[in-house]
């Protein structure tokens, strides 16, 4: 029956990541009062009989639908901004939203080049009338503060020159800090912060290799469960691993809203640097204009 088909189509259009604007338009766009009434009465997923005699739209579905409709809009807004403004705004929001969002600060501070991070700091002055580091220092409490301030203040050397024997010593320092992790959290260890926040990325790669030799495990494995410290280590030298993980989490079936938002952020900011197989996952999960926009960004590949 046409009505059941319509309801099934609408369910599909409204489920998942983004909404299928085209289907919605063709079904609801031509819907008269009678049709809409039949829809509400037959569409048990979204409507239920209210005791006052009307078919009421389920409030939790209203909320999640609004979020899905917003996805395309938010993606467009994010992608239109200059990268400096975009990164500055993302960081400012993350600071205000609290500890669960601090990984975004790490993500930006560690995966951008020195000039890109500097640009974001300049934009921050202009947009918010203060420096990025003072905002973080003033709002972040606890053990994460030192690391975050240090990471956003970095202006790393970008040349290939590496100091091998220094890298070895520093790998040992990190290994010791991790080993003593139950006595003192590595994130509170000043030496650890200094190494991660000041050394160049090629030098850090040397350190990671030495670490692996010393500990027979990679430093990211050993920092499992150490929150943003692990994110830091990953983003600095193997950002693809970090971003793939974030995308997988966001595209999974029971992803929460923040994880889903991360998908937009990662695709908009990384585009060309994404692993190709993500495309298949996106084809399967995303819908409508949001999907087309994301696929377009990936296909174009430039930053």
């Amino acid at each position, binding site marked *: 029956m046409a009505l059941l088909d319509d309801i099934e189509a609408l369910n599909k259009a409204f489920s998942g990541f983004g909404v299928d604007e085209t289907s919605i338009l063709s079904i609801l766009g031509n819907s008269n009062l009678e049709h809409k009434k039949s829809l509400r009465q037959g569409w048990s997923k979204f409507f239920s009989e209210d005791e006052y005699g009307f078919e009421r739209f389920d409030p939790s579905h209203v909320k999640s639908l609004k979020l899905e409709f917003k996805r395309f809009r938010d993606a467009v807004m994010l992608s239109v901004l200059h990268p400096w403004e975009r990164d500055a705004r993302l960081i400012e929001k993350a600071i205000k939203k609290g500890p669960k969002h601090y990984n975004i600060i790490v993500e930006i501070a560690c995966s951008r080049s020195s000039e890109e991070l*500097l640009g974001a*700091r*300049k934009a921050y*002055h202009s947009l918010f*009338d*203060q*420096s*990025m*580091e*003072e905002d973080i*220092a*003033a709002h972040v409490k606890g053990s994460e*503060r*030192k690391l975050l*301030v*240090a990471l956003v*203040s*970095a*202006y*790393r*050397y*970008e*040349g290939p*020159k590496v100091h091998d024997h220094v890298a070895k010593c520093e790998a040992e320092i990190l290994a010791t800090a991790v080993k003593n992790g139950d006595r003192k959290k590595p994130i509170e260890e*000043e030496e650890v912060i*200094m190494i991660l*926040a*000041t*050394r*160049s990325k090629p030098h850090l790669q040397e350190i990671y290799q030495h670490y692996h030799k010393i500990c027979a495990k990679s430093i990211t494995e050993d920092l499992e469960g150490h929150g943003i410290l692990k994110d830091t280590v990953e983003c600095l030298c193997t950002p693809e691993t970090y971003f793939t993980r974030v995308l997988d989490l966001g595209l999974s079936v029971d992803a929460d809203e923040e994880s889903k938002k991360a998908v937009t952020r990662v695709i908009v900011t990384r585009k060309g640097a994404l692993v190709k197989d993500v495309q298949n996952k996106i084809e399967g999960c995303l819908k409508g204009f949001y999907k087309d926009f994301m696929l377009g960004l990936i296909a174009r590949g430039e930053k």
Partner: protein
Amino acid sequence: MAIVKGSWVAIGWGTNEDLIIQILAHRNAEQRKLIRQTYAEAYGEDLLKALDKELSNDFERLILLWTLEPAERDAFLANEATKKWTSSNQVLMEIACTRSANQLLHARQAYHARFKKSLEEDVAHHTTGDFRKLLLPLVSSYRYEGDEVNLTLAKSEAKILHEKISGKAYNDEDLIRILATRSKAQINATLNHYKNEYGNDINKDLKADPKDEFLALLRATVKCLVRPEKYFEKALRLAINKRGTDEGALTRVVATRAEIDLKIIAEEYQKRSSVPLDRAIGKDTHGDYEKMLLALLGHEA
């Protein structure tokens, strides 16, 4: 650039210091850069290398520092400071706090280019303890430069400073965070409030132990952030009054401030010592070194 070519002939055959002073002392950074380029094109070697071979000690160092571009100069001084011992913490702080946010940034860029590493990694790995806790954030800062001030914040942060200082927690994270991240205008407002509310200048309260070197650095930091001309006046005064004169400090202050605020510093010096700065320098130094210092003192920016 006939002047340039003519005088460099003089350099090759035994140096004519007077000519060097004449040529370099009264040029601004742009002109000095041009002179360096022209020399390099004409003689296939960097001017500073040539000067290095021909000159000696204090005079040479002053010429060297003066001829470098400001960003290069700061990078050079900062790098030197990370290799020396404790008195050099002062130089690092001085560069981090008296330069504008963009000047400090350019110094960091020049550091990458010249030393193939970042300033902050060198500072991190050559300073220790409380000094590192203070210096690392100072050299990494990129302060907001606007005049906007939040008076409520000034009040609350003055309170924090007072609490920490009263509790002798001089290396406290919040204390350092305020000095290392807030804009200079904001810090100024905070310190004004501190004085209004608690009666003393913050530096008076930071004098609890006159022998404590960290406290001395903290006081100097505060001064550099809000009253750099007073800081430099004192640095000059100490350099001149010191038995035998501290040429290193004298050279550094004159070379780095000649294009900025040396005239104001000289006025402060006269107010404080009742002796004009050029006369004090004339008494304490001699030869070409003295001549170059005096020439820079009269430098028209």
